[in-house]
C-alpha cells in the first residue's frame, strides 16, 4: 500500500512538472501545443547527447530544461507566431502543433533509430521513509520537482513577471492596455514552460530508466488528464491534478495491471469532464487571478 503510494509520488512529481508547463503554455500563450510530449523527448535526447561528451548525471536535468526552453522559444518564434499573425484559426494552430510533434518524433526516430537509450545516474542507497521504497536518486528527483514547483509558485505570486503572466493569461487585451508587453511575456512564458517541459522530459527518463523517440508523446495522456483535472491554464490545479493522476494510475497499476495506466488516467479525465469540466480549482484560481 505505502510502496504503491511511493511510486505514485514519484510518478506524480514528474507529471506535475510536465503538467504545470503544459497548462501555463496553453494558459498564457493560448496555443494548445500538442507537440509538448515530443519536445520532452527531444530534450531527453539532447541531454543524452551531451552526457556522451561527459556532461551527464544531474547536469542532464539542467541541460534538458535549457534545451526545452530554447526549442519552445524557437517553435513559437519561427512557426507559431508567424502562423497566428497570418490569422490562423484555433483549429489550424492545433493542426500546426500536431504536425510539429509528428515531425519532431519521427526526426528523432530517423536519427537515433528504434532503440532504447538511458541516462545514467547512480541510484544510490535504497531508503524506506514511512514504509515507502525510494532510491536516493529517486528521492532527489521528487525533491527537484518540489523545489521547481515552489520556485515557480514564488515566481507567479511574488514577482512582477509572474503578475504580468497571470494578467496575460486572464485577459491579454486588458493586459496590453495596462502597459504589459504581452509579446515579451508570451516569449518568456514559452521559455519558462519549455524549461519545465525539458526538465520533465529528462526527469521522466531518469525515473523510468530508458526512453525512445515515442516516450514523451506517450506521456501526453496523463499530462492532458492532469491539466484538465486542474482546469486548463491553472498551474496549481495542474499540480493537484498530477498528484491525483499519478497516485491513481500507480494504484491501478498495482491492483489491475500496469498496462492500464493510460486507461485509468483517461477514465478520470472523462469522469471529470462529465462532472466538472471547468476543473477542480477553477473558481479558486479565477478569483486569485482577479484579486492578486
Amino acid at each position: 500500500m505505502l510502496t504503491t503510494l511511493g511510486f505514485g509520488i514519484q510518478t506524480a512529481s514528474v507529471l506535475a512538472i510536465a503538467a504545470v508547463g503544459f497548462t501555463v503554455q496553453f494558459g498564457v500563450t493560448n496555443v494548445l501545443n500538442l507537440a509538448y510530449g515530443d519536445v520532452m523527448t527531444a530534450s531527453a535526447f539532447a541531454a543524452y547527447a551531451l552526457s556522451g561528451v561527459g556532461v551527464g548525471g544531474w547536469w542532464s536535468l539542467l541541460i534538458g530544461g535549457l534545451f526545452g526552453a530554447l526549442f519552445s522559444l524557437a517553435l513559437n518564434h519561427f512557426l507559431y507566431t508567424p502562423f497566428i499573425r497570418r490569422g490562423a484559426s484555433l483549429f489550424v494552430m492545433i493542426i500546426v502543433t500536431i504536425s510539429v510533434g509528428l515531425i519532431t518524433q519521427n526526426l528523432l526516430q530517423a536519427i537515433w533509430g528504434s532503440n532504447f537509450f538511458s541516462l545514467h545516474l547512480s541510484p544510490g542507497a535504497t531508503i524506506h521513509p514511512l514504509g515507502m521504497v525510494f532510491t536516493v536518486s529517486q528521492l532527489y528527483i521528487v525533491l527537484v520537482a518540489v523545489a521547481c514547483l515552489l520556485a515557480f509558485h514564488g515566481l507567479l505570486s511574488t514577482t512582477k513577471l509572474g503578475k504580468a503572466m497571470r494578467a496575460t493569461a486572464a485577459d491579454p487585451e486588458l493586459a496590453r492596455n495596462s502597459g504589459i508587453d504581452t509579446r515579451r511575456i508570451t516569449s518568456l512564458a514559452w521559455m519558462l514552460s519549455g524549461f519545465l517541459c525539458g526538465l520533465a522530459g529528462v526527469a521522466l527518463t531518469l525515473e523510468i530508466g530508458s526512453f525512445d523517440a515515442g516516450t514523451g508523446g506517450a506521456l501526453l495522456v496523463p499530462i492532458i488528464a492532469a491539466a484538465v483535472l486542474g482546469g486548463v491554464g491553472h498551474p496549481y490545479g495542474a499540480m493537484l491534478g498530477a498528484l491525483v493522476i499519478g497516485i491513481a494510475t500507480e494504484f491501478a497499476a498495482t491492483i489491475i495491471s500496469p498496462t492500464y495506466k493510460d486507461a485509468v488516467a483517461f477514465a478520470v479525465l472523462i469522469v471529470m469532464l462529465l462532472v466538472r469540466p471547468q476543473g477542480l480549482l477553477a473558481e479558486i484560481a479565477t478569483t486569485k487571478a482577479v484579486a492578486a
Partner: protein
Amino acid sequence: MSAAWQFYIATVLIYLAVDVTACLGLNLQYGYTGILNFAYIAFVAIGGYTYAVLTLGPQPRGSFQRYFFGASLPFPLPILAGAAAGGLLSAVLGAIALRRLRSDYQAMVFLVVSLVATSVVTNAVGLFNGAAGLSVIPKPLGSALNLSLLDYQWFYVGLTAAFAGLTYLVVHRITGSPLGRSLRAVRDAEHAAAALGKNVAGLRMTSFIVGGVIAGLSGALLVGSITAWSPSAWLYQETFVFFTALIVGGTANNAGAILGAILVPVVFLEAVRFLPQFGPPGLTEALQWVAIGTISLIFLWFWPRGVLPERRRVITLPGLPATARPDGSVAESPAAGTAP
C-alpha cells in the same frame, strides 16, 4: 499488362476508394462542421474490428487468435454492422465530448481517446487479439463468388467504388442542403447560429455521427480487402494522414476531399514503395511521417485553403453593403442571385 501489375493497380484502386470514403467522412466533420476529430482513425478501426468478428465466426477451440463474440453473418451485414459500430461509437463519444466541451478541449480529448483506444485494444488481448491483431478474416463473398484472385480483386474495386460513390452522394446531399448550410453556420459562428434558433449541439452531433458511420464503413471495407487488422495499423498518426489529405485537397469541398485522398494517402504514400530501401528498418517510415507533417505545414502556410478551395458563398441583399465574412475578407463583387 502482367497479372502482377493488374493486381497491384486493383489494390491501389481499392485503397483509393477506401481513402476517399474516409476523407469524405472526416471532411463532413472537420471541413463542414469544424469538429477536430483527432480520433477519426479509431472509428475506422472499430468498423474494421466489427467486420472482422462478424465474419470470422465463433472462435474455434485452440485457435491461434482470441477475440470476443464471433459470428459469421452473410454479406453485406458485416460491412453495414461496421458502419453502425462507427456511428454508435460517435454517439457515445459525442455525447461526452461534443456537448460539454470547448472545441480546443475537444481536440485534446479526441487525441487522448485515440491514444487510449490503441493502448486498450493492444493490452486487452481477449478483445481483438491484442497487438498481434486479427488475421485470416474472410473477404466479402470470397467463397460464394469463386473468382480467381485477380478477378476477385477487380470485383472488390467495384464494390468499394460503389460504396465510395454512395458516400459521396450522401455527403454531397447533406452539404448542399439547408442542413449543410446550418452545419457551416455552426462552424463559422456558433452563437449566431444558436441565436437564429439552430440546435447547435444537435447539428454537431448529426455531423459527428454521420462521419462516424462513414469512418466505420471505410474500416470495414479496408479490412475486407487486407483480411488482417491490428493496432499498429491505426495509430493516432493515421488520422493525420486524412487531415493532411483534406488540407492539401481543400477542406469543406467534397471534390477537394477526393483529390486529397488521391494525392496524399494514395500517390504520396504508394510512391514510396518504389524507392529503394535504405538505412535501418523504420527509417523510411519515419521520414515518411516527417514528410507528411511538413506537407501539411507547407500547405497551411502557402495554400491554407487547399488545391480546391471551399466555394465562396456570398449573399448580398439590395441596399446593403457587401458583408464581411468570418475569415475576415470582404466580398469583392455583389454576385447576387447565387444564394439559396
